[in-house]
């Protein structure tokens, strides 16, 4: 039964991956843009899911890290750097800033931490807007080149989509590995009960900082891809509402579930597009849908699935118990 389920899951995963590769071939420019955006936002949301879902540290600053990554990548690639090198700088910059932002988390928790990161988010926006010598100010940075990867030009939307999808695959594998490593278990210990984690010898200080730094670094990766995706960046997309959107993606998808960010980003990026036929009402409907979902299942979409599976498992287990009990009775 469990082996069957594993094959089934593997097959479903392969079908989804194949669909992500094959279906968009005939998509138009805009469709590919939206799908690429989904991939990029999923990466950012995965970072936040590490910080919030696994390590339990509330952050309202993930959008700012996407901004840091986007600006680093935009500034360097317009100077003639290749994208991979610029991405590395994006990652390092957001990792370092994320590490620093982790220090307040050592002092305060929960809503207070949310407020500190919210303030940081606004500060970052002001820097993007005002330091025009570096960021181009409100005029932003235009003509951001798309890279050549192994000799392939990604100027056209389809190759660039594959670049985003490939990056998403690499990030997913890395995160998959990370949450199964001792680090992931330490993160979860931090979330469940920091005091107990500490008494069991988990260096909570280091892991809190790491949870912030790694989560932010993934935000940087997303930003580093976002800049060549739109080919023009200005401060507006990286204001507080992006951070709130990313947080919403993580919660709606299911915080602390590996596939939560994929679903959450799908809802946040694709659902408004699907609702576009309703014209001016689509964002309203989106907001209502999010509220209804959260009322129904505060642990997000995957929370529903999780409860359903847990229910079935308990039912199956109690059926097994009943069977073995009746057997015992017949033996007696």
């Amino acid at each position, binding site marked *: 039964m469990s082996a069957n389920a594993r094959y089934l899951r593997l097959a479903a995963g392969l079908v989804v991956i194949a669909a992500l590769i094959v279906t968009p071939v005939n998509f138009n420019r805009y469709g590919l843009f939206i799908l690429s955006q989904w991939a990029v936002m999923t990466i950012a949301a995965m970072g936040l899911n590490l910080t919030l879902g696994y390590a339990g540290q509330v952050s309202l600053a993930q959008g700012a890290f996407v901004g840091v990554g986007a600006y680093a990548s935009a500034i360097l690639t317009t100077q003639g750097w290749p994208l991979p090198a610029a991405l590395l700088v994006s990652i390092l910059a957001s990792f370092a800033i994320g590490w620093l932002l982790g220090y307040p988390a050592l002092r305060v928790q929960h809503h207070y931490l949310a407020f500190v990161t919210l303030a940081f988010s606004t500060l970052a926006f002001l820097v993007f807007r005002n330091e025009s010598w570096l960021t181009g100010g409100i005029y932003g940075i235009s003509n951001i080149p798309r890279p050549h990867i192994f000799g392939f030009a990604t100027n056209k939307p389809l190759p660039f989509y594959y670049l985003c999808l490939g990056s998403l695959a690499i990030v997913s594998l890395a995160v998959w590995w990370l949450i199964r490593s001792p680090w992931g278990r330490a993160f979860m210990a931090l979330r469940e009960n920091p005091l107990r984690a500490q008494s069991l010898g988990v260096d909570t200080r280091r892991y809190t900082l790491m949870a912030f730094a790694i989560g932010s670094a993934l935000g940087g990766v997303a930003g580093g891809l976002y800049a060549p995706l739109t080919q023009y960046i200005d401060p507006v997309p990286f204001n507080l509402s992006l951070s709130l959107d990313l947080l919403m993606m993580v919660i709606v998808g299911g915080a602390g579930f590996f596939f939560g960010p994929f679903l959450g980003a799908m809802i946040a990026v694709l659902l408004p597009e699907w609702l576009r036929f309703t014209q001016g009402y689509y964002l309203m409907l989106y907001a209502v849908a*999010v509220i209804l979902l*959260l009322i129904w299942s505060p642990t997000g979409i995957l929370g529903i699935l999780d409860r359903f599976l847990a229910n079935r498992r308990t039912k199956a287990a109690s059926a097994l118990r009943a069977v073995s009990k009746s057997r015992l009775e017949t033996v007696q």
Partner: protein
Amino acid sequence: MSNLFDLLIAGLATGAIYALVAVGFTLLWQTSQTINFAQGEFVMLPAFLMLAAMHAGAPFWLAIIIGILLSMILLGLAFKMLLVDPMLRHGVLPLAIATMALAIGMKEAVKQFFSAEASPFPSIVPTNDIAVLGHVVSLQSLGVFVVAILAVVGLTALLNRTSLGHQMQAAAQNPTVARIIGVPVERMILLTFLINAVLVALASLLITPIYLAKFSSGEVLGQAAFIAAIVGGFNQVRGAIAGGLLIGVLDNLSAAYVSTQYRAAVPMIFLIVVILFRPQGLLGRSEERTV
């Protein structure tokens, strides 16, 4: 020197409005652990309700009453019944996220059903200038300040001097014990939601003539009130008042003396410093940690 005086007056006027909004914010937190990310939009909406009433032909005074009543129904009663009550038992974060979604929905609804453009809004206080002690003072700033302070003082008196206020405080501080000694806790919680609705409607009435009625005007205001509430003390009404005034003055002074570009940064940095070194806020009590 006269410049500083003007800045202080203008700062106190906006600060008093921030205080109104921040007080409502802390009331919701105290009685029902609701971090209302839509509080800024709550201030934006009543102005549009009043404008809609005026478009329907109501005179200004009637429109104000209709606006306040409608916001009590929508932002008080409906908000509590439809959103907070079903979500409260799920904890702080999902509820906070739901209010974020609510903020998006409210902005879009106003944009769609009313207008994406800024609309002018009549002022309830005179808008001319008068001379006080040799300074030209905007009567509007003064009027806004006086009205907001009166509202806050009235509310504080209600909370501290009346039996009803004591019952509300009891319901906020320890619902279980309050229930045992016979306080109708549910009704008290509903009352705080209604009071919040009146406070945001009042703030809307005072601030909209200055900044115009626009669907997005809640963003800045909500954030300022948010900061005011935290800086002053998240769990104290008087903290929210002090925080509001402080942030209003700080905002105006930093625009003049620091830089217009980074004026928004000063309250933020102040916020970070306060949270790191006095997380319970300047006037707040510390919350106990449990294992």
